[in-house]
């Protein structure tokens, strides 16, 4: 096999879901002509932009052979803490300790802090990552319920709403942010030593260490970045809905894992691409949109969401031709 043929196959695998996405668009057009309207497609892109940041975060963590379940709670807690600190007492459960302008920095800082705490347990103390982040998922969800009293924060400061609502150059800002961050991550994972170190660590941590990669430092950074991305995703959703519900992000982690695996990222680490993860989440949301347009009754959407994951998994197995692990 020649070198160029090898490269072509590698690239094709990267694009495995593209035909599936195109096929889904044809199906959508048959189901409802409204599907291909620009406003509808823009809606799909915007709806998936928040969760897609969680997928991006999880894909980075998976690439280096780890898992982070707590991302879905960070998604709710980070903006929740910010709202709690800036809102005036009396309106909701706010403390009113900080001016409204602090809400965005606080949100992002909480995300990084959660990532650092995860890293502390997993890397510094050597605890099992799956269970640590499972514990964190429950603790963080409980914290949000605690500070909010189980209620929804609203009347948020304008800076917190801005990113989720703004329109830049005719497209919602959250779509821009999602696309730019994915593009950035594709470049970092494909073309920097740091990015390649993620693959090396996920593929064989001992070999990575032997090659002089500072494995622990890379893992610390990745977990912190994952927390940051989850917080940003939460912020975008908060802006779009102009509120923080106590259940924000609840259950999202299953969709996130499904999207990553459908997009070809291996749960065992070291395999897959960021672009693949993006096509994974996009395919999930397209299928969901088509079903909604097809008039599926709302009470069946829950059951269908699970079925969608299985269908997308089967589609990706067929188009990539590779066994998933």
């Amino acid at each position: 096999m020649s070198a160029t043929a090898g490269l072509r196959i590698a690239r094709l695998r990267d694009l495995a879901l593209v035909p599936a996405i195109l096929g889904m668009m044809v199906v959508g057009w048959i189901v409802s002509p409204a599907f291909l309207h620009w406003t509808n497609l823009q809606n799909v892109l915007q709806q998936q932009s928040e969760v897609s940041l969680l997928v991006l975060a999880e894909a980075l963590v998976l690439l280096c052979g780890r898992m982070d379940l707590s991302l879905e709670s960070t998604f709710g807690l980070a903006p929740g803490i910010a709202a709690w600190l800036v809102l005036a007492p009396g309106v909701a459960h706010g403390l009113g300790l900080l001016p409204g302008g602090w809400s965005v920095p606080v949100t992002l800082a909480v995300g990084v802090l959660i990532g650092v705490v995860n890293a502390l347990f997993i890397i510094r103390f050597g605890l099992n990552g799956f269970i640590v982040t499972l514990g964190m998922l429950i603790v963080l969800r409980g914290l949000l319920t605690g500070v909010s009293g189980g209620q929804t924060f609203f009347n948020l400061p304008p800076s917190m709403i801005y990113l989720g609502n703004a329109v830049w150059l005719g497209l919602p800002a959250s779509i821009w942010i999602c696309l730019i961050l994915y593009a950035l991550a594709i470049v970092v994972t494909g073309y920097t030593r740091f990015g390649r170190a993620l693959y090396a660590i996920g593929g064989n941590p001992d070999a990575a260490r032997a090659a002089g990669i500072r494995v622990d430092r890379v893992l610390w950074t990745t977990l912190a970045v994952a927390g940051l991305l989850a917080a940003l995703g939460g912020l975008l959703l908060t802006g779009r809905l102009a509120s923080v519900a106590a259940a924000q992000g609840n259950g999202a982690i299953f969709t996130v894992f499904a999207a990553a695996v459908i997009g070809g990222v291996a749960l065992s680490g070291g395999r897959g691409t960021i672009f693949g993860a993006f096509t994974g989440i996009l395919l999930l949301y397209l299928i969901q949109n088509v079903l909604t347009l097809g008039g599926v009754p709302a009470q069946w959407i829950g059951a269908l969401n699970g079925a969608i994951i299985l269908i997308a998994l089967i589609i990706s197995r067929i188009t990539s031709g590779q066994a998933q692990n």
Partner: protein
Amino acid sequence: MACVYQKSTVIPSLSVAENVFLNRQDRRHGRLPLISWRSVRRRARELLRAWEVDVDVEQPAERLTVEQRQLVEIARALSHGSRFIILDEPTAQLDGQAIERLFERMRALRGQGVTFLFISHHLEEVYEVCDTVSVLRDARHVVTAPVAELGERDLVAAMTGAATGLIAATADRPAPAADAAPALRVDGLGLPGLFDDVSFAVRPGEIVGLAGAGGSGKMAVAECVVGLRRAATGTIEIAGTRPPPGSVAAALAAGVGFVPQDRHRQGLVPALSIAENVTMTIPERLGRYGFIGPRRRGALGARAIDELTIKASGSEQPVSALSGGNQQKVVMARALAGDPKALVLSQPTAGVDVRAKETLLAAAENAARAGAGVLIVSDDLDDLRRCDRVLVMFKGSVVGERPSGWRDHDLIAAMEGIAT
């Protein structure tokens, strides 16, 4: 400083080129120091060409053969520009030509002032490339001396702890019955690109060697026999039955026992105990209805430790805690556990010390004495000395057969494809 480890440090999912330049990938000049894949690939191609490793540098490293992988690791370590290089059993998976290239490269680098620490069990290699030798035995330092002052006999004595010859010829094995039905018969076996029209038979009680350089296809033949690969043409008969091709379970059920080429990859589950590894292929002997009797398993593990003199604290010790030689004995014990009618050994003594080598080959001989047909697939001449006859493969076909008593240079010439 650089090091080639005995255990593979290649990352399977990454490309060969990236493995070579891991964490030191070339970067573009300019404001954004992004990796230049073009430059990484070009330099990897140049480096591997110098080592005559003919592989596509863009394919993932998991597709390399064991030998190619080893060469890639050596080429990588020697390309760092280090002043001190540790090589831990670098030749364990290499054929004669590749070893010669490695030694040439080492001599050239030594001329430039590079220091090597060369860890090996192979005496001839020590005499060929080393200046000073230290012997460690049973975790103790025994002797350090200039190679020129230490004779081969003394070196062996230092390694084994007894003043005996290395390979004691054993002639007490009865000749196999000429008319017995073959324990293993291979007929017209072929797999495009690897080997073609290979036929031979091994009788019960016979030890047959299958020799050949890397790339001769001998390993692929062995893998077809044991069901790890599926041949495109031809038949394999084990003690009169024809198991469905390409199924390890069927081959085992038909009476095959085997030692795979790479114990780290196919031979062992490191975290499990000796007893569990030894009995992995014979669960049906441990209890009824799919249950496993721990007492029976422990007894079989203890028997293996006893028979193959495995140095371990007990049969419940995890295999990962054993030395390379003792791990290989566990793999051998597993091959023998089912009382095989046909025993296939692929490089059975790769990377083990002299004493373990003796034990392993003696175990193979005992199996033959008990009536098994033994096929030893190896390019290590010491493995082949006890064979009743040695078949030589070159570039995918059997090109010759040598009865016991062959001369080293004749066999090596045949393996390298030089007609004699």
